[in-house]
């Protein structure tokens, strides 16, 4: 202890105050000692604990129940082969959707002629994409895209099949799927690395744009014209019933943006099924480790 803070014991020597002071001096568990000894005990405990022997055993958090171990997916590499496989799978998906609506008799006789041609086009385009995948050192993927079927096509088909106007909604659904293909092919150009692949996908993209425009002409050109809001500022985006209006030429440049499809009967609140269709992303790609 220094001079400015003399020890309590020393103070008692110089300035005795009461008779009880000697009793305090003899107490082995005064506050200071308690703190000192308590801290020492804790420190030793910590050191002993840290130096404890490792007796082995699994230190991972335990599992409850008997569920299977989760499957770890391989890392997916996005390359040109994956991208053309994805487009191949999308062609198969749209083909499956059109065939499903055909088998259910959802199209008008006039439109069915077009749809039959579209199905043939999708078969041919899928083959081209498959050949491209093989030429690129990969394998084709001659089956529908699971993500697309689960998220888009199955819900749309379900809504159309319960619609108050099945023919109207079957055409709207077909227009939406052809437009999705057109957007997707164009979008792929920015992801593909080989110029020849870009050309090959845009041959199919141009065809998809034509199918989309053909359906738009039939659906709305007579009422709303061919130039969409991207060109004609007076062109409405939706009709009075709330359905998006398809335009043969929706904008000056080709689009890759998401768009809405509305189909199905009205529910109790007057709303119909609607969803936004988007170009493929990482969750839609058909990676090389996937097979039909």
């Amino acid at each position, binding site marked *: 202890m220094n001079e400015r803070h003399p020890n309590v014991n020393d103070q008692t020597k110089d300035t005795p105050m009461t008779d009880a002071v000697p009793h305090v001096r003899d107490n082995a568990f005064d506050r200071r000692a308690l703190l000192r000894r308590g801290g020492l005990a804790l420190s030793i405990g910590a050191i002993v604990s840290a130096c404890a022997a490792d007796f082995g055993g699994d230190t991972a958090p335990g599992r409850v129940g008997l569920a299977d171990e989760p499957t770890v997916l391989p890392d997916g590499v996005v390359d040109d082969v994956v991208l053309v496989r994805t487009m191949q799978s999308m062609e198969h998906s749209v083909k499956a959707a059109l065939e499903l609506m055909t088998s259910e008799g959802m199209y008008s006789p006039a439109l069915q002629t077009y749809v039959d041609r579209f199905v043939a*086009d999708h078969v041919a385009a899928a083959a081209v994409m498959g050949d491209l995948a093989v030429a690129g050192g990969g394998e084709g993927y001659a089956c529908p895209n699971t993500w697309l079927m689960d998220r888009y096509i199955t819900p749309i088909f379900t809504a159309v099949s319960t619609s108050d106007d099945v023919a109207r909604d079957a055409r709207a659904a077909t227009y939406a799927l052809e437009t999705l293909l057109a957007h997707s092919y164009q979008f792929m150009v920015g992801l593909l690395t080989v*110029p020849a692949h870009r050309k090959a996908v*845009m041959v199919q993209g*141009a065809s998809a*744009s034509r199918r*989309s*425009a053909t359906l738009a002409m039939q659906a709305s050109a007579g009422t709303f014209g061919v130039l969409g809001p991207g*060109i004609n500022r007076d062109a409405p985006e939706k009709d009075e019933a709330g359905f998006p209006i398809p335009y043969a030429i929706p904008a*000056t440049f080709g689009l890759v943006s998401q768009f809405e499809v509305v189909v199905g009967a009205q529910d109790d609140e007057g709303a119909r099924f609607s969803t936004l269709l988007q170009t493929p992303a990482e969750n839609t790609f058909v990676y090389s480790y996937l097979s039909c």
Partner: protein
Amino acid sequence: MSTIPKGHAPVNETPGDANTPDPESVAGRRHLIAGGLAAAALAIAGSRSAAAAPNEFTEDELALLRHAQRLELTASALYDVASASGPDSALWEPMSEQHEAYAHAIASLTGLSADSRDEGLLEALRSGFAGKDAVQAAYDLESAAVATHTELLELVGQVNAAETIASIISAESRHCVVLADALGRGSDLTALLVNAAEPILP
């Protein structure tokens, strides 16, 4: 590249000079100079790559894109001919504006001014656009433009250019459908869906 300024001896060659600064100070200054040079080099390299990226075209690519640009301006001019000569159509003016927009899009990519047309093509197609078969002439030109741009995709490696060309292909393919319908071939699946045109080569 020399790092020694003219008229000044290198610092490490003046050991006997009365004005020689103390070694620690020299070392510190050297580090500062070296650091400054490195920073300047990084700045130059960085600014150069950022500025050059959109215009990294070969001479051949630029020539092809110039051809595409002139084709679009020619198409725009031909729609103007149709608008001035033939029966009034609500299509001609917006079609002209769209093709002009495509030419400007190529200009913004390449730095090539959108200021010249393919005069030979313009004269060859002028009578078609001025006459009663203007819609057929327009359908044929749009189809040929799609075929031309599709060929370009294989010849131009720069991805931004490819994306722009692809968006033009999508739009012009739609033009073909509208024109096929205007021709009275709205139920002709071949006219609507198939492009059999040959590209217009430079």
